């Protein structure tokens, strides 16, 4: 192939590619009919300037009917997946809230006789059922661990929080570890942070959320 032929071929290919792409873009935009859902309707953390007024006490919950299961099924547990908590357990009053910042798993503690004055353990609502996600009232930034910075390490940490209906952290669990130093930095930052609770409708509720943190060097 001569140089002229190569140029002609390249030229034709480039023109064809452009024309095709320009037409494709118009088509693809119109085809992208799956609307990207409104971002901050269901997924939003807000840094608020001041602590919002305490939420109104939740109205008494109507007695929830016992789930009617036609056939009790034991869900199959995948290899590295913790067993999902039984919904019945969540509906039962549970013992005292766990200490913030402990790297504990989510195994329920042994049952204790309920104290008459003890508030019931909240039912943690998964994020998809919320009308408004919990928000940072005070967001403490994790500190990049010095030794990891020095040695050039980067990491990703995913943490799961159980927040009560006042936004207090009842439990914190590392779902994806980036190494001890990174995990500790995230825990420390969350311990120093404050949250406004999540809401179902107008009612603040206890919530289970996961937050990913990415540590990057620049």
């Amino acid at each position, binding site marked *: 192939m001569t140089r002229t032929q190569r140029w002609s071929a390249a030229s034709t290919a480039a023109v064809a590619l452009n024309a095709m792409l*320009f037409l494709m873009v118009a088509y693809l935009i119109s085809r992208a009919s799956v609307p*990207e859902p409104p971002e901050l309707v269901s997924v939003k953390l807000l*840094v608020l300037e001041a602590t919002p007024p305490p939420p109104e006490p939740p109205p008494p919950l109507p007695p929830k009917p016992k789930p009617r299961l036609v056939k009790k099924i034991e869900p*199959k547990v995948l290899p590295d*997946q913790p067993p999902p908590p039984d919904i019945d357990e969540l509906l039962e009053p549970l013992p005292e809230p766990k200490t913030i910042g402990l790297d504990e798993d989510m195994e329920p503690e042994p049952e204790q006789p309920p104290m008459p004055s003890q508030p019931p353990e909240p039912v943690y609502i998964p994020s998809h059922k919320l009308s408004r996600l919990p928000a940072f009232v005070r967001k403490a930034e994790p500190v990049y661990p010095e030794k990891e910075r020095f040695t*050039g390490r980067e990491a*990703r940490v995913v943490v799961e929080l159980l927040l009560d209906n006042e936004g207090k952290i009842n439990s914190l669990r590392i779902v994806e570890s980036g190494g001890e130093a990174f995990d500790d930095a995230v825990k420390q930052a969350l311990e120093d942070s404050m949250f406004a609770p999540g809401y179902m409708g107008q009612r603040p509720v206890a919530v289970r959320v996961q937050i*990913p*943190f990415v540590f990057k060097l*620049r």
Partner: protein
Amino acid sequence: MLVTRDVALKTIILFGALVMGITARPEVCQAEGLYAVRGKAMVKGERIPLGGATVYVMGRDDIETTTTNATGDFELALPEEGEYMVSASMVGFAEGERLKVIVTSEKPMATGRLYLPPVERFSEIVVTAEKNQDQVGKRVVTGQEMRKTPGSMGDPLRAISNLPGLSTSSGFTGFPAIRGSDPTNNIFYVDNMPTNNLFHYGFVSVFHADLVENFNLYLSSPGPEFKEVLGGVIDITLRDPKTDRLHVKASVSFLEAELLVEGPIAEGHSLVVTGRRSYIDLLVGPLIEELDKGVKVVQFPWYYDYLGKYVWKISPRSKFTLFSHGTQDGMKMEMTDESDVAKKEPDLVGDTAMDFIFNMQGMSLETAFSKSIKNSFTLSRRDFTRNVAVAQAIFADSKDTVSTARELLTIKAGASHLFTLGGEVENSDLNILFEGKTWAPNEFEPQKDITSAEKKKLETIFKGTSTAAFMKDRWKVMDPLTLVFGARWVAEDYLEESYTLPRASLEIKPSEGLLITAGWGKYAQFPQVAYVVDVFGNPNLKFEKSDHYTIGVKKSLYGGAWDAQVEVYHKTFENLVVPHKETNYVNAGSGEARGFEVLLRKNASLESGLFGWLAVTYSKSNRENELTGETFQFSHDQPLVINAVASYRLTNWTISGRWHFNSGSPFTPVVGAYQDETGRHIPIYGEIGDERLPDSHQLDIRADRTIRYNNWKLSIFFEAQNLYARDNVTGYTYNDDYTEREPAAGVPPIAAFGVEASF
């Protein structure tokens, strides 16, 4: 050997898969005896498994939810036969398409995939730290931030001139003048390797935009670990290749088409390869045969580049990198005696052509021996061949080969001291063949017409080796106070000069979010090779020198949502090279630059779609020829530069705008003319930098959108530059007898469009 074969085999497979379009599709096993749905949750458009997502059945609170594991897999038990709508949710992701499943007693297990689109500004909280902790005169910006700046055409390198302290003489060049220093006084590093080739034709970045991870810009008072220059340091980090799977990016804009392929090739080994070719010459070239009367385009300007980066993670604390990069730029035009320019400069009649070929190879080994000792060693070699012919006026053919070895050892001694020790050896070998009427430009030299000049010929070889050693201690004296001090020693064997260049700075953090900095340092730079070669130069020159003084305050506002920064600087220059009748050049120039910069920046955050900055620079820079006593304004002196950049993310689109203002640059006007014996008018130039161009300003806007499909995504952008069609003046053209002049306009209103598909 086995590893090598394995790597080679996987490389072939990787490219084979690209060419053939093969994608792996994992088998989904069915369990028996349960009503359930099993599948995988994925990040929409990324083909990345999504761990930790809650999977649930729509409208059925009585059915237990489940959570995906680290590989995105889930299994959700269903109570009975029937039809279910399954969905998933996770913080940072919007709801994707629902999965409709039907389970029956004959088929109790359904399978499927759920794709969740990330909510761009909320999918993760990014915690950053700086590799180099020095703060004086430094700015760190990411490639992502820069590439979406309006006016950049998606090119992060071009966009850095929007930061305070950097200015370009026109919209056509990307090489910045930094804080009153000439663009030739800067040093560029890419992945710790020095380079001098950042732009095609001076304004299109040579690196694929997606690879540019971040810039560390040292505008003044850089530390001793950087090569000796009078201006600033631009340290570019290219990201490592991705290791999760094969990625392909194809991009098309109105200028060029480019392809990026990356992925793992074996456990711990990964590779990224990019290639780019401009095609504006193929599209526009045939339509523009004549640029102006008597000026024909024979070859419209074109370019290509390639880059390969191979990374071997030898261990969690050790990394080996191979780097290969190359570019070529070419153009050709022909001028006839009908041209207006040729009437003034008859020597420009004929063919004018350029062909630049650049190739660079490098390797680096980074090792953290322990939590207190780490080492970085790099080797690089770059070849730059330049062929330039300007009609009858210039013929130049040069080839530069520069090899560099750089060693950097960092030692942490207790909690208070961080030592950086190292050295650098650079060997330069230049072959120069030149025949022409103008030699290297020099800011102290008045402009002259070309045709009247005497034609000279030079054929020479330049060989030089510079050896440098440096030491720095970052000493945390007490909690709020850190002292950084050190020195760079350099010896050069061509000029037989050696220098010791001390530097010191301090950083005080009186309270959380407040930083006060001050820096001082001595700097020196080898003169341009053109000034020191035999015949045309002076091999007895000395290094040019500069002292830098910098004071700054940085305050983080509103919990880090905003940053405010003010820096004041003063630089003095001495030993600058000026033309001399007998010895060609001497070190008889001096000068100074001073100014202040204000940067107010709204950081990208989870809570707000607004990102941007306001940068205001006020500076003055001048030069003095100590031979003649002549004082003039530095050619890049733009006293006031303002850049306001704002970007706002809407539901689907990100809309950005940039307004730029700069004072006009000084230029040397023609003040008269006389006729020679042929009747040609010869211009008489005024004093250097005696006039200023009018102030320039322009508004650019840009719109970006990413459309996600299940397994790929499409990014598009529209950009409009100089929206209100301001005629910014970049110079003047004169009539035949130099009695009248007309302004030459800068960037006209331009609309551009780009598409990038990522697989």
